[in-house]
């Protein structure tokens, strides 16, 4: 597939040829959120190392994380975390061989999205309530 030069055999159709479906979008989102979380761990390690380094380092991190762009990134990180978690739970169901029928997998896909959004809103509400 990645050989240089044109492929001399027919290739299987890829993403752009299919009409988007919710299961497909959730599958792609699972990978994207996973990759985002990979780099998102930097947010955690920076905060922890700053906390271990002292009050001035931690103050800088607090100022950046507490700014509007910082909060937006953390909000996105929180959603990615919950979305990947809910998507993972869906995969646990599929691992047992259950939930692969058309109706069920559609419900699971929508459920993943709503659950992740719900959990993120819940976390944000808890943040605001303090």
């Amino acid at each position, binding site marked *: 597939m990645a*050989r240089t030069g044109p492929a001399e055999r027919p290739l299987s159709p890829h993403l752009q040829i299919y009409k988007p479906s919710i299961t497909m979008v959730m599958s792609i989102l699972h990978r994207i959120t996973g990759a985002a979380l*990979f780099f998102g*761990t930097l947010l*955690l390690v920076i905060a922890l190392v700053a906390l271990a380094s002292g009050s001035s380092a931690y103050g800088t991190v607090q100022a950046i994380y507490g700014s509007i762009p910082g909060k937006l990134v953390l909000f996105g990180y929180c959603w990615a975390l919950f979305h990947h978690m809910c998507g993972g739970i869906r995969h646990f169901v599929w691992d047992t061989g259950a939930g692969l029928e058309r109706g069920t997998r559609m419900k699971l896909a929508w459920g993943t999205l709503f659950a992740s959004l719900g959990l993120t809103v819940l976390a944000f509400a808890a943040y605001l309530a303090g």
Partner: protein
Amino acid sequence: MSQESSTSLRTPLGRVRGLGAAKSGTDHFWKSRVTAVANVPLTISFVVIMLMLSKRDYAGAVKLVGQPLVAILLLLFIGSATYHMRLGMQVIIEDYVHSEGRKIALLMLNTFFAIAVGLASAYAILKIGFAG
């Protein structure tokens, strides 16, 4: 299976070993699932701890992270999450990067990144915990 044994080209030994072409069988899949299961409760505890942390100043944050239960939960989360993300990123690299040299370089970087993030976080948590 009995059908397979009469028609398959796989040797009986190969079938018994069950390791397949990549020679690692279901190892990658299984480790990814074990860490994923661990990640569910650990992620929830992580978010709760971060929410608690967001309301504290430096001294309060040090005190919170220094509490044994909090420190242990964070350490478990870091360990399980960095292991899991290394497995996941490995699959992404193998899916999209086909040039052998770049693939090997990125797979190594993936491991270095996961270990560096995990170790730095663990060191910071332990330093805060043991200082208290």
